[in-house]
């Protein structure tokens, strides 16, 4: 009985989060079919979905695991470029667009997961600032590697090179998929708002179930007091790896969704600034608060577009709004107001 009582609020909170996303989707779809949506907002729908997934997945690392990661865009980048290449390779075999999108996004997610297995080696040995620096370096390494990779596809299969497009020796009917600093071009636009919505639901299901599972509690126990957690037999490497790799796979999926919404992507896009942007979503939404991440990511992606009226001062106003919101949400008086409206706080956060 005792246990059920304790579980109930968190389950309720999860359902509110799902419900919120579903209602938002239904409203947007209704507006879309009614033709009432402005094209500026219509164009933002898929990027919003991708950023929401990025924010939720980073929240697993930053909020739940309690480790600062500054290279999350790196995983997005791996997922994005792998998915683009996979989608092009599958063009003749898989004719259905949505299926091809799903398959190539999954391949992107797996690739990001595999890369994260390499990064996880230092991650398990480091904490705090050191870990932040390692992840920061990782993001830059990914960017620089992709900047010098050339991938082509022709009748004989894939051609890889590190020098230039000519050195690949493509057949006449061959197609360049990735051209170093010129990025991937000619991407078929497969992503849709519905795909993004389904990905958010999947991400929420993975993240919320993880947090409320035995593994999630173990990760949070390690975050709050590593020595105490280890003394009761929780293995730090196992659970940290679980959280970190899950987070990376979700980021890879988001990368795939994001990339296939545009006709070209550059490795430059997934740099330190993008990592910081996603961290801002997480911090603003509240660390460990999944619903907050969803709202913050959506709001902060739309905000710069709403500020276009300020023309030259747009980014200045954006930054000021950001600072004000940060101050406001961290104000003790405001916190008590929020707490009153809060229905069972999701994933109890540690005290500052």
């Amino acid at each position: 009985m005792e246990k059920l009582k304790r579980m109930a609020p968190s389950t309720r909170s999860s359902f509110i989060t799902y419900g919120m996303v579903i209602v938002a989707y239904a409203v947007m779809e209704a507006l879309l079919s009614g033709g009432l949506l402005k094209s500026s907002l219509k164009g933002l729908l898929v990027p919003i979905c991708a950023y929401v997934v990025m924010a939720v997945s980073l929240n697993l690392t930053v909020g739940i695991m309690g480790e600062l990661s500054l290279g999350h865009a790196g995983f997005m980048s791996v997922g994005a470029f792998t998915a683009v290449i996979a989608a092009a390779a599958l063009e003749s075999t898989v004719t259905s667009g949505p299926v091809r999108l799903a398959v190539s996004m999954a391949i992107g997610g797996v690739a990001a997961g595999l890369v994260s297995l390499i990064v996880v080696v230092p991650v398990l040995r480091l904490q705090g600032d050191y870990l932040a620096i390692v992840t920061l370096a990782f993001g830059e390494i990914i960017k620089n590697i992709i900047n010098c990779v050339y991938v082509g596809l022709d009748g004989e299969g894939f051609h890889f090179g590190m020098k230039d497009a000519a050195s690949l020796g493509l057949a006449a009917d061959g197609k360049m998929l990735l051209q170093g600093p010129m990025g991937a071009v000619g991407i078929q636009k497969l992503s849709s708002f519905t795909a993004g919505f389904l990905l958010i639901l999947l991400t929420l299901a993975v993240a919320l179930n993880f947090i409320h599972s035995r593994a999630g509690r173990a990760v949070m126990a390690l975050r709050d007091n590593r020595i105490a957690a280890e003394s009761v037999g929780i293995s730090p490497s196992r659970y940290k790896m679980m959280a970190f790799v899950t987070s990376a796979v979700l980021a890879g999926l988001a990368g795939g969704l994001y990339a296939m919404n545009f006709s070209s992507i550059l490795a430059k896009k997934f740099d330190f600034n993008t990592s910081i942007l996603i961290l801002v979503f997480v911090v603003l939404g509240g660390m460990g608060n999944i619903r907050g991440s969803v709202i913050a990511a959506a709001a902060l992606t739309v905000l710069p577009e709403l500020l276009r009226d300020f023309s030259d001062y747009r980014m200045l106003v954006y930054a000021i709004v950001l600072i004000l919101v940060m101050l406001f949400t961290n104000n003790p008086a405001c916190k008590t107001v929020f707490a009153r409206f809060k229905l069972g706080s999701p994933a109890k956060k540690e005290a500052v």
Partner: protein
Amino acid sequence: MKRKNVCSLVLAAAMMATLAGCGSGGASSAAAASSGSASGSAAASADPIKIGGIGPITGSAAVYGIATRNGAQVAVDEINAMGGMQFELNFQDDEADAEKGVNAYHTLQDWGMQIVYGCTTTGSCVNVAAETNADRYFQLTPSASSTDVTAGKDNVFQVCFTDPGQGTTAADYVAEQGLAKKVAVLYNNGDAYSTGIATAFAAEAAAKGLEVVSNTTFPDDTNTDFSVQLSDAKNNGAELVFMPIYYTPASLVLNQAKSMDYSPIFFGGDGMDGILAMEGFDTSLAEGLMLMTPFNASDAGAADFVAKYEAAYGETPNQFAADGYDCIYAIYAACEKAGITADMSHEDVCEAMIAAFTSSDFSVDGLTGKGMTWGTNGEVSKAPMVVKVENGAYSTM
């Protein structure tokens, strides 16, 4: 404790972004005021044709976006003052980012634009061009020079040379003028523009019998020390160093070459334009530097434009401003030819403009080239121009 650290870090990052935005935003505030009043007066007269401009007004590439905006605004003001056909330019910021470029495009769609002018940068332009192609908007870019911008899209046209076109032309020029036999190539391998030109240059140089003795690169973010690359060129006896890079790293290359007593001919692309106007740069270092730029502000033909631009924005226009100016006049000429009116839908405007641009008797005399014509592939054809720095000023070769 940790949470506090993260918060302060994020806040610091936000402040940095603010300051970066400030630097470029402040410089252009005068421009914004004047463009605001200009579009106000245009709106007052009957039914202007709505041109939507896209380019970076904030961020590290803002200098190019602001130049293309201001150059275009000068042309729009001139055309509106003539009476007859009226234009209205609405220029939106894309921070030189592909995602923001598409956002800016959608915003302009809501505004009701009929013609797209932009984008300034390639990365953003490739994505916007895919959208305009699907939605049927006519698009003319002043400075997005990659072939990916126009490839497979019948509605997108360029006023600048393409990257490979520029590399090939440069190699031809070097070979024909007999400037050197042994050449070195130094480029930024993290940048599409630089890589595109360098690759084409190296290929054409080999075809023309030039020997590429040194082919060195530097990454996008660490561009302060070029001694390794310059030593390589020097040790291999290169008589000419071709560097299709922007002027900031180029100024450092020139400085470091001087300090190591290496004085080959330095040859640059149009990204080098602006080096003489750079703050704190000793122009004597650039003496003898050759670069391919379609625009020379000290040319007699440009005097009128330069005077107007200086009066409005307080600085000498560079090549990007001239490209923007030419874009608007090309649009104007095509609108006249195709009989575009303000009440036409963007689809009709698009088809009529494509027909006008690709028709055989359509040519535009602009600041960046006489008799510019366009083929169905969207690439411009005009004579290249090479300038040499002599006594601290450009002289046309």
